[in-house]
C-alpha cells in the first residue's frame, strides 16, 4: 500500500494521463452527534475497481460522497493522484458519478444529457465523443429521446454514458444497479465489469449487495458502523474474514456461529476462541452418501499448508429442510445454536426432527476472540 512514493505520485499527477489513486487518510464525518464515518484509512489504487460494501447506514455512501466532494469531511484528508482535494469543490475534482436514481436531466434529450458535462470542458470533438460513448453503451438509437421515454435499463445506460463521456479521473457509483430488476441487474453487472476493464478507469462502487460486490470488485472494502472492517480481494474477504462481522456479512446463507462448547470432541485447540464459525458449504453429515470430501478448495489449500488436519464433529437436530433447486439447505439445532448446512444433494435419512452428526475439517473453522476479531491459526 505504501509502495507509491510521494514523488512518483507528484510526477504522475502532472502528466496528462494522470494517476488517479484515491487516498483517504483518517477521514471522519460527523452529522451532529452521529459519527457516520470514523477515521477511515483507505487507498484506492489507480485503475482499480473497488467496492465499498456494507449494510445500510454503514457510512459507505457518505464515504463516496466525500470523495465526490458533495460532503465535506469533519476530519482527515482526501487526495486524488497525490493532490489534496479535501477542500476542492466537487465540480473541480474531475470525477463523475452515477447516482442510485440515475439523476438524468429530464428536460434534456439523451444527447443533451451526454453533452452537458462536455459543455463545461475544453473539448472540440463533442459529437464524436457522444457517438462513441453511445455506441459503446448501445444507446445510439436513443439519442433524441427524453429520459421519460426510456425504460429503466436504458436510463441506467444513459446515466453511465454521462459518466463515461467526459473521461474523468475516476468513476464514482452509488448503487447504480439497485433499481433494475434481477435479470437485468446481473446482465448489466457483467457489462459494467467489462466496460471498466476496457477503460481502465479507477472506480469506487458502493453497494450493500455482496453478490454484486464479489462479481465486480478487484478489491472489496467492507464497512460497518462507519468503520472499515477489512479490505481485500473478494477471495480474501470471503475465505479469510478479519472478524465476525465480515464473516457473517458475506456468504449466502451466512456463516454459522456457535460456542466452542458445542463441539462434541474435547478439542483444546479451540478452547481459546470465544466463537467458532463455519461456512454452510463446509458442513457435511457423517455417514451420508452426499459426503465426498469436506471443504472447498480454500480448505484443501489450508490443509496442504500444514493447517489443522483434524475433523470436528457436532451433534445437531434437523429443523428445516429447504430445497433450492440446485442445492439443499438444512438448518440444524446444535444445542441452541443454529447451524445451516448446504448440500448439493439431499443427504439420506435427514428429515426435520432427526438427529445427525455434522462434521467438517478443523481447517475450515474460523475462530474469533471475545471482540469478534479472528484468531490467526
Amino acid at each position, binding site marked *: 500500500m505504501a509502495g507509491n512514493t510521494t514523488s512518483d505520485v507528484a510526477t504522475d499527477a502532472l502528466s496528462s494521463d494522470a494517476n488517479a489513486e484515491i487516498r483517504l487518510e483518517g477521514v471522519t464525518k460527523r452529522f451532529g452527534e452521529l459519527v457516520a464515518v470514523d477515521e477511515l484509512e483507505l487507498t484506492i489504487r489507480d485503475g482499480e475497481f473497488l467496492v465499498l460494501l456494507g449494510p445500510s447506514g454503514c457510512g459507505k455512501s457518505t464515504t463516496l460522497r466525500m470523495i465526490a466532494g458533495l460532503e465535506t469531511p469533519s476530519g482527515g484528508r482526501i487526495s486524488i493522484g497525490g493532490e489534496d482535494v479535501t477542500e476542492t469543490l466537487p465540480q473541480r475534482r474531475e470525477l*463523475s458519478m452515477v447516482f442510485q*436514481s*440515475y439523476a438524468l436531466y*429530464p428536460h434534456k434529450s439523451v444527447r443533451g444529457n451526454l453533452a452537458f458535462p462536455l459543455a463545461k470542458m475544453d473539448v472540440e470533438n463533442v459529437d464524436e465523443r457522444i457517438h462513441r460513448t453511445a455506441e459503446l453503451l448501445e444507446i445510439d438509437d436513443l439519442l433524441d429521446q427524453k*429520459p421519460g421515454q426510456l425504460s429503466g435499463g436504458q436510463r441506467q445506460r444513459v446515466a453511465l454514458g454521462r459518466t463515461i463521456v467526459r473521461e474523468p479521473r475516476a468513476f464514482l457509483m452509488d448503487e447504480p444497479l439497485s433499481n433494475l430488476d434481477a435479470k437485468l441487474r446481473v446482465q448489466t453487472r457483467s457489462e459494467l465489469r467489462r466496460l471498466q476493464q476496457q477503460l481502465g478507469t479507477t472506480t469506487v462502487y458502493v453497494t450493500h449487495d455482496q453478490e454484486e460486490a464479489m462479481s465486480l470488485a478487484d478489491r472489496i472494502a467492507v464497512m460497518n458502523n462507519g468503520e472499515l472492517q477489512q479490505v481485500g480481494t473478494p477471495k480474501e474477504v470471503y475465505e479469510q474474514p478479519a472478524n465476525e462481522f465480515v464473516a457473517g456479512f458475506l456468504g449466502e446463507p451466512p456463516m454459522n456461529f456457535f460456542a466452542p462448547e458445542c463441539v462434541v470432541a474435547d478439542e483444546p485447540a479451540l478452547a481459546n476462541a470465544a466463537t467458532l464459525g463455519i461456512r454452510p458449504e463446509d458442513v457435511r453429515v457423517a455417514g451420508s452418501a452426499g459426503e465426498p470430501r469436506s471443504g472447498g478448495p480454500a480448505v484443501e489449500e489450508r490443509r496442504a499448508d500444514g493447517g489443522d488436519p483434524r475433523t470436528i464433529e457436532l451433534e445437531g437436530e434437523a429443523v428445516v429442510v429447504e430445497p433450492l433447486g440446485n442445492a439443499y439447505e438444512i438448518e440444524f439445532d446444535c444445542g441452541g445454536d443454529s447451524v445451516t448446512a448446504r448440500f448439493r444433494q439431499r443427504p439420506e435419512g435427514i428429515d426435520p426432527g432427526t438427529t445427525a452428526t455434522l462434521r467438517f475439517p478443523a481447517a475450515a473453522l474460523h475462530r474469533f476472540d471475545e471482540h469478534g476479531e479472528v484468531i490467526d491459526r
Partner: protein
Amino acid sequence: MSTKSTYRHTVDSFKNALGLGNQTIETSLYERLIFYIALGLSLFVTLFPFYYMTVASLSPESSLYSLPPTLIPDELTLTHYRTVFGPETFPFLTYFKNSFIVATVTAGASVLVATFGAYSFARLDYKGRGIFSRGVLMVYMFSGILLVVPMFQVIVWLGFVDSLWSLFITYLVQTLPVSLYMLGNYFRSIPEEIEEAAIMDGYSRLEVIFKITLPLSAPAIVAVFFFTFMIAWNEYLFASIFLESQGVYTLPIGIEALASGFHQVWGEIMAASLLTSIPLIVMFMYLEKYMVEGLTFGAVEG
C-alpha cells in the same frame, strides 16, 4: 354497500366523468345522475355572475332596470363598450395600462425574488433558515386591512403616495410569502441528486440553478407569475388608499370611481368589468400548458 365501497365508487365515477379513469367502471344511472346534478350546481354558482355580467354589459339601459330582471336579453347593444372606450367619460385605456404595468412588474419581481429566496429555503443550509421560512409565511396570515395604516406610513415615508410604486411595493410584500412557499415546495420536489449530478458534471451552484433547477421548475414559476399577476390586477383595498389622481388609477378603483357617480352606469360598469377579466382569462389559457405537472418525469427511477 359499505362506506368504503361507496367512497371508492364516488371517486371512480368522478375520475371517469373527468376522463381520468384508466379503466371503465360500471356506473349506474342513479350515480351518474347525482354526479351531473353536483356538477351542474357548481357550474351554475361559479358561472352565473359571469353570465349576468356579460348580459348586462350588452343590454340596453332600459332592460337593465326593468323588474323582474331579464336574464335572456331581447336585444343586444354595444353602447356601453363604446362609452367605456370613449375618452370623455372613462379613461379605460389609462387604467388598463396602469393595471398592466403594476401587475407585470410585481409578478416579474415576485418571481425573481421568490426564486432565489425559495431556493435558499429549500436547498441551502444556514442558521435561522427554519425561522425565516416559517416567519415569512406568518406575515401572510395578517389580513390586509390590519396593515393599511402602517403600510401607508411607510409609503408616505418613501414618498410614493399617489404613484404606482406604492402599489408595486405593497403587492410585492403581499405576494412574496405565498410565492416563496409555492416555489420552495416545488424546488423540494425536484430530486437533489439531479442538482448534484450537474455539480459533478462541472457546474457551479448558480449555473445549476439556471440550467437545471429553473427549467425544471417552469410550471411552478408560471403558476407563481400568474398568481401574483392576478392579485395585483384585482387588488382594490391598497390601491383605493394609496392613489389619489385619476391618472394613476388601476382598473378596480377606476371601475369603483365610475360606480360612485350619480348617474346610472351599470351597463358601463359591467362592460368595464368584463374587459378587466378578459386579460386574466386569456393569460390563463395561454399559460396553462406550462403549468402541467410531470416535467420531472423520467429523471429518477421509482
